[in-house]
């Protein structure tokens, strides 16, 4: 109702609904500026979508290769969660002026492609530890890092739809990381298996360092964090 200056009868009501209020409540401390412009946000989201796709494809493919029934079921469940994340990013891209989402659905760089190839290399039924280590001790922690950096540095007002998706996705990532880490701990029973897990993790971490993270250099800040503020 427009303000006409005429106050209707307030009766017993104490609060005046026509009293001017600040546009932002006192507890709302969101900031307008952010680290990423539209293009940079879209570029990162394209990288996220590609990486989530590779992850759900790998999890789905591994289901048939792991003999442990509990692991088999978890992989099937997590496969869907990462597919859903890819779908959220796929839907966000056109909202960031990328009408052909496939154009930006790309790996951050060649090193990221090599990381995926190395992560998906284990196939034998005796390699469940390696499969899980690649996903839950390397890939997902890097997702959590990149998503957290994005959530904490993008504009809290202009890029609110991305932040909302990031919050849903981060909840999944933390839940899945916990599931995966507990599976790994339950599978590792000997010092030799500790060494196997550590060796595979080291190999993959080196490739991830080369890639610079899920969205390339600057995934969690520093050089290449990019975008206009």
């Amino acid at each position: 109702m427009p303000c006409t200056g005429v106050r209707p009868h307030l009766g017993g009501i104490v609060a005046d609904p026509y009293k001017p209020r600040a546009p932002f409540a006192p507890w709302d401390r969101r900031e307008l500026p952010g680290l990423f412009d539209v293009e940079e946000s879209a570029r990162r989201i394209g990288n996220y979508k590609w990486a989530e796709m590779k992850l759900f494809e790998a999890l789905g493919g591994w289901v048939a290769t792991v003999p442990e029934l509990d692991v088999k079921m978890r992989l099937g469940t997590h496969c869907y969660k990462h597919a859903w994340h890819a779908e959220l990013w796929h839907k966000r891209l056109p909202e960031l002026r990328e009408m052909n989402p496939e154009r930006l659905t790309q790996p951050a760089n060649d090193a990221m492609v090599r990381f995926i190839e190395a992560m998906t290399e284990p196939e034998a039924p005796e390699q469940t530890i390696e499969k899980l280590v690649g996903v839950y001790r390397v890939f997902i922690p890097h997702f959590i890092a990149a998503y957290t950096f994005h959530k904490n540095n993008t504009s809290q007002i202009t890029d609110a739809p991305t932040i909302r998706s990031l919050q849903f996705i981060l909840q999944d990532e933390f839940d899945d990381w916990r599931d995966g880490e507990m599976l790994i701990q339950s599978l590792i029973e000997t010092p030799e298996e500790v060494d196997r897990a550590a060796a595979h993790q080291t190999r993959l971490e080196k490739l991830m360092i080369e890639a610079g993270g899920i969205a390339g250099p600057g995934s969690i800040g520093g050089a290449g964090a990019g975008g206009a503020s």
Partner: protein
Amino acid sequence: MRKFFPVEELARDSRFNQVTMKDRMADPRSALVKDEPRQKSNRLVPSRPDASAAARGLMHGIFVGEIQALEGAGRTCHDFRTAGDSARRAQDDAHGEDSFADAVPFALKLDMARQAWDEARHVEISVKLSDWMGSEIGEFAENTVLFQAACSTDPILRLAGVNRALEGLAIDVFTTMKEFGDLAGDPYLEFCEDWMLADEVTHVKMGSDWLRRVTEHDPDRRKKALEFQSVVDKLFSYGGTRSDSQESPIGLARRFRELAGFTDDEVEDIAEVSLAALEERKASVARMQATAREFAAS
């Protein structure tokens, strides 16, 4: 990780025993093979003398079937390149693989990932139901024919074989088990089967929708896919285990199939194939009995 995982390498722990379909059906605890005098109906109902063992056997069959369905859906997420994924196309090219023939829409893969989650829940449900029914993992053998249907290198044939033929069978099986739970006064069983049934109708509908969409301008491919589905339907009507006849333990769930996108003609075709399989099985048994009588008389 390879594309197209061979069925004989499906990973299982030490409790599982994998056998052929023929071996599985020859299991004396199997629903159609009995020493007792012939009954009017073989339908799985609580009043059947062997109802308890037959229901446990069927539940174990559901359990291993769900594992293979999970594996099949997962492999479809992995085996085929997503349309527009230029990085994967470059990888395929580098490995000398045909990078265009197997591309599938992104949304199809999302459906398969969703199906993988659904099947994972079904494994969880059927493990708990098996325990509830007094059975345990490995009590019955596993035949891997379901996963074989998920090994086609054409994604549309795979969808026709798995989502329409096998998941269609799952609709029939869950309907029968749901009715069994109702008749047996087991609301726990009935409740769980009803939830799984809802998922299966969704999976069959996914298969029906994708088959129509992807082959909209490719009638030859659609024909080939429907022929493959028919082969799988016949395979899974092995021995008439599933048909409209009361002689089959599992009925044909016409109403739910309709909800899942089957046309009336398609349902009639499956009914005919199933009845034919039942008649073949009966003729085969009659031949074996005649041979046995001749042998005994000689």
